[in-house]
């Protein structure tokens, strides 16, 4: 298993190289001159030139790339043009917000999808199945920005049960964290829940027709036990694939949800940085997002082996 993880990590090297090229080329692609932005409107051409030289923007592209990559490898993502703080510091401040939002969204989506998918998939064509299928279609159809606003309206403004915006770190006050994370996590997780429900329903229908389910029943195991042990573990295999893809998608979704719920996460930072043309910060956010996505995919690959012994490395 350790070998397998090491192999996977080695395979990441070329991927990260390509990503670094793309991220760095943002500097070249994004219109506008950072030096110009930094110098302000009244700057003379000499001042701008001085800033350019200072930032190394006059150097050949390759030199700039090497300098930037070298910094990234040492954990130095540069300094924010806007706040003068080290980019990494800001990112690490924001990362827990986004991670807890995405993780809570995944947990909520699984809490919905597993029971719904199992109930629908073991009784295809039943009333419960039709309700679940309809619910899943609706969950997919509802845009998350609209859902977020409605949830704020109902749960925060009308009833005042939960806070509308803001964030409290889990280390500071777990209950307050939960109260703050509930609505955004539900907003973010609903479409994932719908997709996972459909996937699990389909997989469950197929798995429950397998011979080994009949064998398990012939052993005298109770129906419920057969479904939850022999059925679910096999039906979970395709679901894990989808979950991995959804995790990446959820990270992207945090951009909108953090805006709606005023959460100081990476997504909000990304939007703000784009508006202020804070190039090092944008690069930092992208690098961080790539790292998280790569890590999630690694976790998914490792979990495959548990669910499906056939793909376990020998």
């Amino acid at each position, binding site marked *: 298993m350790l070998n397998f993880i090491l192999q996977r990590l080695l395979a990441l090297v070329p991927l990260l190289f390509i990503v670094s090229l793309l991220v760095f080329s943002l500097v070249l692609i994004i219109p506008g001159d950072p030096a110009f932005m930094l110098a302000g409107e009244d700057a003379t051409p000499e001042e701008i030139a001085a800033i350019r030289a200072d930032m190394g923007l006059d150097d050949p592209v390759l030199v700039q790339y090497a300098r930037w990559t070298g910094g990234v490898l040492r954990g130095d993502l540069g300094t924010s043009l806007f706040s003068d703080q080290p980019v990494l510091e800001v990112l690490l401040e924001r990362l827990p917000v986004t991670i807890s939002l995405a993780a809570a969204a995944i947990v909520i989506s699984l809490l919905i999808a597993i029971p719904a998918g199992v109930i629908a998939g073991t009784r295809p064509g039943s009333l419960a199945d039709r309700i679940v299928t309809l619910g899943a279609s609706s969950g997919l159809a509802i845009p998350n920005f609209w859902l977020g606003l409605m949830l704020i309206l109902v749960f925060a403004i009308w009833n005042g049960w939960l806070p509308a915006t803001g964030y409290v770190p889990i280390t500071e006050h777990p209950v307050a964290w939960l109260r703050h994370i509930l609505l955004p996590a539900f907003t973010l997780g609903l479409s994932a829940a719908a997709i996972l429900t459909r996937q699990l329903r389909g997989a469950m229908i197929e798995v429950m027709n*397998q*011979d*080994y389910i*009949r*064998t*398990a*029943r*012939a*052993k*005298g*195991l*109770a*129906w419920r036990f057969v479904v939850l042990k*022999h059925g679910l*573990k*096999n039906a979970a295999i395709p679901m894990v694939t989808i979950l991995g893809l959804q995790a990446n998608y959820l990270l992207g979704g945090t951009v909108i949800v953090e805006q709606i719920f005023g959460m100081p996460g990476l997504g909000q930072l990304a939007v703000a940085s784009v508006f202020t043309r804070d190039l090092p910060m944008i690069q930092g956010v992208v690098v961080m997002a790539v790292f998280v996505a790569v890590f999630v995919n690694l976790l998914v690959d490792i979990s495959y082996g548990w*669910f*499906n*012994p*056939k793909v376990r490395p020998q």
Partner: protein
Amino acid sequence: MAEAMLEIADLVVEFLTDYGWVRVVDGVSFSIRPGETLGLVGESGSGKTVTSLSVMQLVPSPPGRIAGGSIRFAGRDLVGLPEAELEAIRGDDIAMVFQESMTSLNPAFTIGDQIAEVVRRHRACSRREARERAVEVLDLVQIPDARARLGAFPHEFSGGMRQRAAIAMALACDPKLLIADEPTTALDVTVQAQVLDLLRSLQERFGMAILFVTHNLGVVADLCDRVAVMYAGRIVETASVFDLFESPRHPYTEGLLQAMPQLGERGQRLAAIPGTPPMPWQMPQGCRFHPRCPYAETACTERDVRLEAVGQERHVRCRRSGELALAGAE
């Protein structure tokens, strides 16, 4: 004569199809005594597998249902028994081995786990004791180095080993009745012989009754005491193995015997039974075998034929069985 352990009477199983409810098992009756091996023989689609699943009350429902008859096991009718009581019987008093060992074992769990699971279900014992029992039964079915194999997954076993493991799983709780549904059909011929030897020796040792479902008469001759031949959802003949092979009383049995490949007759064509079995929704009038029967008369196409007792322990469903001299196996 010992009292029957399993007694099936007038069993009717129906499936919902595009043609409505059709009977795939139609009035099947037979019994098995303790320690006896009964071969249930017939072509694909004759209803033999559905019959065996009915004993376990595992006919997939929907689309299937048991529409009539009784299945008495140790004096108790299994038809209509509450699910909880059936679960207590399945895997404990009655165990089953299926045809496809690749697909009938769960790929996501180890062999040891799947065997220990049935032990823990029916015996009050610890995890460790259940694992010990798993080692014991794997030893019993001659899996080498059984203890080390507990952690293996089904895909790491060969076909023959998987089927042995499946047999071990079935034997784990010392069943009184073992239902084996074509357990050797998917195996290589040499492996088939090993598995049959194994079943025979296990039966000699533990004395359980076996309901052996197969289409292969050669296997029946090898293993069974008595045979019930099924055709188109009905029993057409029951007899002891010796009588059946020596002097079949039903033309269909004769056809099956003639279709068996025999050594030393190279070059001679096998006598296949002409035609195919009828679909359950278009059963022929009269005797269901008459369209394929070389001895059929007009009368055979008109009236239903009953299963009649002909001598000790013999039944046959043919109106001409008294007058025909049918060929047995050589």
